[in-house]
């Protein structure tokens, strides 16, 4: 049977309002009606939630249920599936349905405060809209002196989410979302009758990274955010579609803005990527754009002090400084659009003539660079890369060093859906089973930090873990520093036929790989070591030749600045405390002869830089993020802001000045649009890609232990001290309390608080017993205390000592 035939046999034909229509079996009547253009009013119904039939707003008349007999009473069209030969009359053709809907609407409004003029939802409110389209103009309830049920105005159900119980129509969308989608059932209906209300538990806070979605799907103004409440009217807002910049998921968002300010962000609707959900970070963390520390004009250092400068002057000073500094390294960071990353990549090769460029402003390794070149770059759906749809359809998924709930919210929700709807089996190679893993119904494959390679190699012989071509392996960013792990993962994918993807943490990471912000890769996956690839790139750039040896990676760039081999640095959005060795990075900044910083806000880099360029944030420029799937996610500029130029424009300006000084050539583009066009023109490399070298004989003996040291496991929580969450205190208040996780046996020796001592400092945290953590492993959140673990404690995977804080 062809697929068309299968499709045909699965169709059910029914008649709605006299119009015959064929829809797939199992379709709900309410959605079949949409297809003939009839919108049946509804509240509790949501296409991504299980039907509940609670609000009764969508009642329709069914004169023939498909068996020749009428349904005796109006039916909730959101709960009944279509049947062959069924006849449905909606409010458009049936008096009964129309009266039933008007009756329900009248009931819904009797206890609703009708405070639309002061309600955040007014103007975009399904209740308001449908009361106009399917309700009476006059209220018999208030005309007869009816007394409404009242509640005190909003109560907090979390620091961020406020509940106005009077407005609530008890559709249970929020509680069902929390239970069915997010897996955080911390809100539930309590009480009964007209006193029924959404409630929280006494001792269990509404702790969910996805809580903001409940506001968006609330069909009335019952749920509002502390952040947006009373800020604006929907009809004053201009909406621009965009892509979330906080992780590598590529989630579609909608930016609602007014007079040059972002007022709020909502989830976009993209069934292929994030469906209709985003994390609270994507939704609420945009105030960093409007902090007092935003840079708004170029600065140059004169007599030790930064002073404002014009753009042309700054371009010239930067070019002169770089030309005089000798060899220059480029550290673009991982938050760039693909266009800007392409500009850095081009700038390094064309203007500076170097391969010393590395976007990885975090712990990394040579093995990772090889892995990215061999297994990641250019890998998309078209050539065997997994997609969100593959996650949902997979038989099994293995996560290696990846905590989706913290690092990639859309992946987390999709995996949870796969597990709950399709029983997809999920395993996680990690130091302990996180709550997020439990919510995905996953199973832990325990691995000490640094020992992941041998665990992954062992999976080939694990009869319980079944991998085949319908499986997906997702490997996280922190595996970069686990010796052999990435190689082992690549081998596992090859031998099992499973699809493999690398899931970085930052929105620009994958785009930076694709555009060649790596010492071993040119744009489009062209290997530096491949002569024909170099010729190809040089031709596209219009230069005579390109350096033929791979450049220094970020660690080596830092070291080379320290040793004087490099004199200059061009630094993009890099937070020193994110880097593998924050102290060394800071020392390099001081040691460098000349530092050019391209930044959004004042940082430790801009404070010591010789030239500081303000760059445009994602709202002020069009661009593309490439997500973990390799899917290009283009977005337009939200604002036109002349104060901030995209990185590409700044680099183009500096390159033009450099070429005027006789060094290198101009980039060949200035705007983001031109950069994009040039990038597309250059295209992907169609030659051989490099293969992954076997790592040097297992160096995993470097695993720490002995001397009372335990191995440090760490990753960043979704909500932590990250600078892009600055300025939103309500969001920050919903972050999880930082704890130090140890095994029960270790906890017994510690008491309530523990001090961890590493080679870079010490951190004191409350102890939390974690069952499946090994006795010689300790876990702490990477950036929830002080300056973060890298600056304050030790490098991940290294040994730390534990001491009861009161001992």
């Amino acid at each position: 049977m062809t697929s068309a035939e299968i499709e045909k046999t699965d169709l059910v034909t029914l008649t709605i309002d006299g119009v015959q229509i064929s829809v797939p079996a199992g379709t709900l009547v309410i959605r079949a009606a949409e297809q003939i253009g009839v919108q049946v009013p509804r509240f509790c119904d949501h296409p991504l939630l299980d039907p509940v039939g609670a609000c009764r707003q969508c009642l329709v008349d069914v004169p023939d249920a498909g068996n020749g007999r009428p349904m005796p009473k109006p039916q909730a069209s959101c709960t009944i599936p279509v049947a062959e030969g069924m006849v449905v009359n909606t409010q458009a053709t049936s008096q009964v349905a129309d009266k039933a809907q008007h009756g329900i609407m009248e009931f819904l409004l009797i206890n609703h405060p009708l405070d639309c003029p002061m309600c955040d939802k007014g103007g975009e409110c399904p209740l308001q809209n449908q009361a106009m389209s399917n309700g009476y103009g006059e209220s018999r309830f208030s005309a007869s002196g009816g007394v409404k049920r009242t509640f005190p105005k909003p109560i907090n159900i979390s620091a961020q989410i406020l509940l106005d119980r009077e407005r609530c129509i008890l559709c249970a969308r929020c509680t069902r979302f929390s239970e069915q989608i997010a897996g955080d059932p911390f809100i539930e209906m309590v009480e009964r009758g007209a006193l029924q209300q959404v409630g929280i538990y006494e001792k269990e806070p509404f702790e969910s990274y996805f809580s903001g979605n409940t506001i968006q799907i609330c069909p009335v103004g019952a749920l509002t955010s502390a952040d947006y409440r009373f800020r604006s009217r929907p009809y004053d807002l201009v909406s621009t579609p965009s892509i979330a910049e906080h992780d590598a998921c590529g989630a579609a968002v909608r930016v609602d803005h007014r007079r040059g300010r972002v007022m709020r962000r909502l989830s976009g609707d993209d069934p292929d990527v994030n469906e209709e959900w985003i994390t609270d970070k994507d939704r609420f963390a945009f105030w960093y754009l409007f902090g007092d520390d935003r840079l708004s004009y170029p600065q140059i250092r004169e007599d030790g002090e930064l002073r404002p400068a014009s753009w042309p002057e700054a371009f010239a000073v930067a070019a002169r400084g770089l030309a005089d500094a000798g060899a220059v390294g480029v550290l673009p960071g991982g938050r760039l659009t693909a266009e800007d990353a392409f500009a850095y990549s081009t700038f390094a090769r064309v203007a500076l003539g170097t391969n010393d460029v590395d976007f990885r402003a975090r712990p990394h390794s040579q093995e990772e660079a090889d892995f990215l070149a061999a297994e990641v770059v250019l890998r998309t759906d078209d050539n065997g890369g997994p997609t969100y749809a593959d996650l949902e359809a997979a038989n099994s998924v293995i996560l290696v060093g990846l905590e989706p709930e913290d690092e990639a919210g859309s992946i987390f929700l999709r995996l949870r859906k796969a597990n709950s709807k399709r029983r997809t089996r999920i395993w996680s190679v990690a130091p302990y089973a996180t709550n997020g893993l439990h919510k995905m119904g996953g199973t832990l494959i325990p691995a000490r930090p640094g020992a992941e390679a041998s665990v992954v190699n062992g999976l080939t012989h694990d009869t319980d873990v079944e991998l085949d071509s319908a499986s997906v392996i997702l490997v996280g960013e922190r595996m970069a520093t686990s010796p052999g792990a990435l190689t082992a993962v690549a081998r596992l994918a090859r031998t099992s036929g499973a699809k493999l993807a690398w899931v970085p943490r930052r929105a620009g990471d994958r785009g930076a790989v694709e555009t060649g912000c790596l010492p071993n890769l040119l744009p489009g996956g062209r290997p530096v070591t491949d002569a024909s690839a170099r010729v190809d790139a040089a031709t596209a750039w219009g230069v005579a030749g390109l350096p033929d040896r791979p450049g220094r990676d970020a660690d080596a760039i830092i070291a080379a600045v320290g040793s004087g081999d490099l004199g200059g640095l061009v630094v993009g959005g890099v937070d020193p405390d994110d880097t593998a060795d924050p102290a060394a990075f800071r020392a390099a900044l001081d040691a460098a002869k000349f530092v050019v910083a391209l930044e959004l806000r004042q940082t430790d880099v801009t404070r010591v830089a010789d030239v500081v360029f303000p760059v445009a944030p994602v709202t002020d420029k069009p661009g593309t993020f490439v997500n973990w799937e390799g899917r290009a996610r283009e977005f337009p500029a939200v604002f036109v802001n002349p104060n901030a130029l995209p990185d590409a424009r700044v680099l183009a300006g500096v390159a033009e000045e450099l070429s005027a000084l006789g060094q290198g050539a101009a980039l060949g583009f200035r705007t983001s649009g031109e950069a994009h066009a040039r990038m597309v023109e250059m295209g992907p490399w169609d030659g051989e890609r490099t293969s992954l070298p076997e790592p040097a004989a297992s160096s995993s003996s470097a695993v720490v232990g002995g001397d009372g040291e335990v191995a440090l496991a760490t990753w960043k929580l979704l909500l932590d001290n990250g600078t892009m969450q600055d300025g939103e205190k309500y969001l920050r208040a919903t972050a999880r309390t930082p704890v130090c996780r140890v095994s029960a046996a270790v906890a017994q020796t510690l008491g309530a608080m523990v001090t961890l001592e590493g080679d870079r400092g010490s951190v004191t945290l409350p102890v939390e017993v974690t069952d499946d953590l090994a006795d010689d492993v300790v876990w702490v959140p990477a950036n929830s205390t002080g300056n973060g673990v890298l600056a304050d404690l030790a490098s991940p995977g290294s040994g730390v000592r534990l001491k009861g804080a009161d001992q």
Partner: protein
Amino acid sequence: MADTLTPVLTADWADEQSWKLATYERNGGYRALRTALRMAPDDIITAVKDSGLRGRGGAGFPTGMKWGFIPQDNPNPKYLVVNADESEPGTCKDIPLMMASPHTLVEGVVISSFAIRANRAFIYIRGEVVHVVRRVQAAVAEAYAAGHLGRNIHGSGYDLDVVVHAGAGAYICGEETALLEGLEGRRGQPRLRPPFPAVAGLYASPTVINNVESIASVPSIVGNGAEWFASMGTEKSKGFGIFSLSGHVANPGQYEAPLGVTLRTLIDLAGGVRHGHELKFWTPGGSSTPILTAEHLDVPLDFEAVAGAGSMLGTRALQIFDETTCVVRSVLRWTEFYKHESCGKCTPCREGTYWLVQVLTKLENGTGQEKDLGVLLDQCDNILGRAFCALGDGATSPITSSIEYFRDEYLQHLTNGGCPFDPVASTLFAAEGAR
């Protein structure tokens, strides 16, 4: 006249310590169980089908047919759940039965579970009646000790465990899917159907939910035969049932009679309406069934005839009201009950009952308007058949039926500027002849 009664379930209620296992067995109890255990389970289902037993919880669905819906090829365990959450205003048959003769229920549970091949049964008892919970618990313990429950019952190889569960006091939990939610530890709110409990009920497994009286009737059917049972009652409503008379009758109580008996006969058996008064209106099956009046005294009390009279047989909770009773006040009381008990899940029931009470209160106080009657009827039209479960439907019954029969009395409240009745006159402590 007394021979119109057919005491089967109630036969031993007057015995000394009727609730004890010894008393029950002395009167022939648990013999039907031994008979049943020698039968093929399907034959028991057939016998119950042939007997014509219809659900005694109000809806009257054929019990044997319900059992037959259980998919025996389903790999999940099967469950029997006894709905003992008797909360319908006026209904007082299951609680007296469980007090006076709990073993009739327990024996019925074992036979019914055996028939549907369940190894675990639950008796969900209304939480407020702690004394009944204790009594049924004691009876179950006695039955375990005597080998009527537990492993390998009477050597048959059949195992059954019975759990006595006390509800938390919500009327809605009498609705079978809300009861299942409650039994699973969730909030008592009705579930979306399909799937029906016969396919995915308790813990998503095939489940039969029956009323106490239905299950308690099973031992007599097995013991005496389906024909014996079917010989009583009317053509489509066979067998006997407990008729609970309450209110303004001389001797209120439970009268067990064949279905099809008339209220006139039952009131005679109960010693007539309160002395010196006459029947004004009555409910055939609790407050959720439309009220009837004296003109319906000769309606046979079976499912068909009562439906023909515009009401429902329901639970045979015959609440008798004499002419001292204000119908508006009664209906207001009932409506307040429904408002209080509405679970809140669906809009029409939750908001509708909230509003109905306000309109009725004004009418009772004489501050309403005549057009409020139209509003009331329209509200009821917007609730009936629009609510998620039958609770909302039931809430409209007393209102629409009372306006049908006593519209003038509603209007009298308005012309009178308040209720024309002395509420004391309707009380039992009222002086004889008070008006």
